[in-house]
């Protein structure tokens, strides 16, 4: 019998380990390195003089970081909640044997295929007072109509929410719709036989049975929040001032724009901790569900 690389060797472990080393190096290696650097006073270039948790305590006394964190909470909660709520609602509507379902679905989902860069720009033009909503309303005769959230430090963050929701509702909808379509007709028959009103059927029977689907959609949307960079850059540029800054932009700015690597690393590590805090309950719930 001959023996060559295409014969007699069935060793998937080698391939898997090889690829895992790449993932480990770039993902986990990077995390470790960033963790180390966050403990140093590195500025323009990485240096290894350790300063303990100085960078972290500096972060907590930096207004811009606090603002970006608060923004992340505001943006994150609203983005996830509104996207999910609207997504679930639209999915339920489309599941009611709607005519032209395919067309509606395509319209609701297409923003997901539009880059966040273009999304941000399109909404900026809409929010810009010079030609956007304000100008349009004034054109209709409401001379004193004012809509200037982009330059309002209190409200700029909400423009991000609107654009983000526009981008992601379709995504939430599709996931929930897939879940709804997976529900057996027996459950529906039972609901009808029992004479349960439609809205109660959805609220108390159908949606609870979809919770794994909803949970994974929430986790995916939440991970968008932490990675959201493109949208801020194009829509508000973090402004006015740093009123609509997000940690994702804060970290990149300090890595590259402001050459403050140690500081930026500390911010990235805190971002990772936020992710972990979000994932632990999710994985734990999945693990529990699998055990049952």
């Amino acid at each position, binding site marked *: *019998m*001959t023996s060559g690389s*295409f*014969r*007699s*060797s*069935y060793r998937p472990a080698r391939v898997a380990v090889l690829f895992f080393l790449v993932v480990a190096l770039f993902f986990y290696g990077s995390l470790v390195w960033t963790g180390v650097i966050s403990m140093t006073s590195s500025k323009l270039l990485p240096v290894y003089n350790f300063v303990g948790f100085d960078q972290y305590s500096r972060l907590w006394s930096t207004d811009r970081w606090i603002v970006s964190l608060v923004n992340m909470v505001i943006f994150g909660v609203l983005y996830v909640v509104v996207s999910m709520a609207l997504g679930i609602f639209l999915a339920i509507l489309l599941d009611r044997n709607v005519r032209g379902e395919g067309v509606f679905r395509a319209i609701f989902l297409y923003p997901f295929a539009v880059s966040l860069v273009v999304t941000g720009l399109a909404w900026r033009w809409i929010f810009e007072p010079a030609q956007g909503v304000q100008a349009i309303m004034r054109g209709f005769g409401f001379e004193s109509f004012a809509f200037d959230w982009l330059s309002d430090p209190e409200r700029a963050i909400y423009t991000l929410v609107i654009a983000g929701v526009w981008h992601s509702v379709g995504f939430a909808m599709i996931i929930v719709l897939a879940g709804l379509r997976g529900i057996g007709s027996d459950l529906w028959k039972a609901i009808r036989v029992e004479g349960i009103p439609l809205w109660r059927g959805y609220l108390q029977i159908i949606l609870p049975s979809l919770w794994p689907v909803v949970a994974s959609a929430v986790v995916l949307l939440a991970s968008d929040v932490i990675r959201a960079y493109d949208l801020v850059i194009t829509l508000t540029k973090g402004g006015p001032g740093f009123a609509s800054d997000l940690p994702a932009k804060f970290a990149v700015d300090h890595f590259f724009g402001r050459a403050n690597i140690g500081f930026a690393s500390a911010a990235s590590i805190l971002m990772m901790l936020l992710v972990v805090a979000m994932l632990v309950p999710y994985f734990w719930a999945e693990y529990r569900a699998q055990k049952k």
Partner: protein
Amino acid sequence: MKSIHLRNVSKSYGATPVLSGINLQIEPGEFTVLLGPSGCGKSTLLNIIAGLEDPSGGQLLIGDRDVTTAEPADRGLAMVFQSYALFPTMRVRDNLTFGLRIDRTPRAEIEKRLKWVSELLQIEKLLDRKPGQLSGGQRQRVAIGRALIRSTDVCLFDEPLSNLDAKLRTETRVEIKKLHRDLGTTIVYVTHDQVEAMTMADRVAVLSGGKVEQYDTPQAIYDKPMTRFVAGFLGSPSMNFLSGTLVAENGLRLVRGGGDLDLSGYEVTNGAPAGEAELGIRPEALRLTAPGAGRLRARVESIDLMGADRILWMSVDGRLWSVRVERDRACREGEEIGLDFSAAAASLFSRDTGARL
């Protein structure tokens, strides 16, 4: 043709033992069936022979060669799977010749064997179809063809008939048996179907709880089961049992609530039988007698018509027994009746160990 020799083979997943101390000597050209209920370890054992799983301990020889750690492809065997496992994107032709092409067999040789195997199995017309375009029976033939084409010394079958309907199953059974007779390949065949085991095997290994209970010819296993498990597992309806205490003085007797049962004439297998035991009698080994005439009293509970014969279900000592009788034998439900049997056709098992006495 090659022999297969398993020496003390064991397998466990973590702390869960699946197989322990398996010893089998399968002769060259022999058709061996591994029979047992689901979860008994028979498929694991087959996978270990195939090399798809590694044993946790023990040794495996095919022919004279120790192949315990050899790659499946280097063991010189072929396998037919339960789901057929045809490669769905390849035509039948390519499915059949895949292994030969990997071995870089010369093209002329491949064509020759393809012709031989497709004629043998009458699948010449299917060669250019994809598996998705075949019926279950056709897929089965292709799967067998793929195993035969390489003319290996050993062929393994993993419940190959369980996805076929009853009629096709019987036909294919006959056909596999014929192929074995013509080709003489050593076959190891896993099934949970005792009819397949009884009709096809030269020898049957009955497995339970990861152990070989008995390895013998189908007839021996049926007539002289060596353990209580084998006795209960084979036969339909299954063997009838009665428990009591064995006493050896003044001829072998089973002492029980309903009086002593004379068992003189029983061929003792192991030592001097005594103590708690179970008596087993096959449904066809029982004779109906007038009430009070036989050694046992019974009451007919229900009657199953089987066509060729009839099964009477009756209560004996509070247990439900079955008796096979010719179809003309008159009787009715509720009738009190006597039963008798020849002690030589009965089996005795220890209550403690389950071993034949």
